[in-house]
């Protein structure tokens, strides 16, 4: 915890990724950027770039196709970072649970720090979740973090060695 760690809570940059949900959550995320809720007041920005983001906001029940993309996004984000799972699908699959093409929630792929319940959560709930994510983020260190079941095999499959 140095001098610069105090400024973390002032500028959380969000990376938003939809892993195959119905886009209801995504509409709420964009609503919270719009004039009425305006989360840029608190310095939060929606960056489309994992390399410059701090909070990974995941919606949807991770489908088999975007499983590896989600892992890569997680690995590309520099620490300290937090993962927020938003909506019922992100928690355990929601209405898609136990279908042939889903992984039943974000926590099976990457470790999740904050859960935002609801289908779809209201913007107030989203802002509340972000605030809680910032509290966890402030305590984190710069140590490297990995997805679940991370090993050499996955490293090869994701192609992160070539970068």
């Amino acid at each position, binding site marked *: 915890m140095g001098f610069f760690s105090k*400024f*973390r809570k002032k500028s959380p*940059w969000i990376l938003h990724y939809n892993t195959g949900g119905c886009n209801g959550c995504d509409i709420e995320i964009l609503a919270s950027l719009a004039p009425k809720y305006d989360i840029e007041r608190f310095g939060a920005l929606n960056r489309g*770039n994992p390399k410059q983001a701090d909070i990974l906001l995941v919606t949807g029940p991770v489908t088999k196709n975007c499983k590896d993309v989600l892992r890569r996004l997680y690995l590309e984000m520099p*620490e300290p970072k937090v993962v927020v799972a938003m909506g019922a699908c992100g928690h355990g699959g929601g209405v898609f649970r136990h279908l042939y093409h889903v992984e039943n929630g974000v926590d099976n792929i990457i470790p999740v720090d904050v859960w935002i319940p609801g289908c779809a959560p209201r913007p107030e709930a989203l802002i509340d979740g972000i605030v809680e994510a910032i509290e966890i983020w402030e305590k984190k260190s710069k140590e490297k973090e990995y997805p679940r079941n991370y090993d050499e095999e996955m490293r090869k499959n994701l192609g992160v060695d070539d970068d």
Partner: protein
Amino acid sequence: MIETMLVLFAPILGGFVYGLERITRARMQSRIGPPLLQPFYDFFKLMDKRPMMVHSLHALMGIMYFVAEWFAFAVLIFGNDLLIAVFFHVLAVLALVIGASSVRSAYSVLGALRELMHMISYEPIMVLLTIGFFLLTNSFNYRDILNYEGYPVLELPLVFFAFILTIPMMLQKSPFDVAEAHQEIIGGPEIEYSGPFYEAVYTAKWIEYIYVFFFVFLFGGSHYWLGILLVIFTFIFINLLDNSTARLDFRKMVKFSWVFLIPLITLNLVLIALWR
């Protein structure tokens, strides 16, 4: 003394301009917007991130962009020569282009190519602008321009008009933000920078603000109040243009620059040369 202070505190001053711009942009969209010191909060936060680099040349070129941009501004102030400062600015942008084209990311390479298109569009205008000042004052020294008794903005109206339409190309604003298209190629040349290295690229942009608005200030001549009014007008105009227009194709940008703006400036310069 004031010149040394201006050069030393150029990034800090630029940060304030950027913070003010973010507030202005938010108010134009009827939002409240971030606090004035928000760019500095971002700066300190990025300082605290784990440094991840693609390869060392890429990271070095990001830092070079910041250093060269600051150096270009120092040359503008201490070197007493507008023309040389314009060429040093080319070098600074070139560092960004080299860095961006040295990685495998397609977005980064595409952004680097578009950044070159930006340079093709605005550098001739910058050179013609300094020639315009030379025709008025017979000197490339900015002090002679700031001691010039007339009103450069009234004698070079078309040059000023062309220059404020060039600023969106230099500062990556809509409608000419083709290199940094945030929804399309997510930042372009800066996409692969992260943590402290992104910070260098981020801060270099603040110095670019000071660099550009200094040129606007020169249009006031020895009337400093006019210079300040022009800077405020340009700031509001640029933000209004940024908020109300959509992004154009890069071909349209180059065409607009070479078919419309450069002939306009040339006309003004020919008239000034004939009149003198």
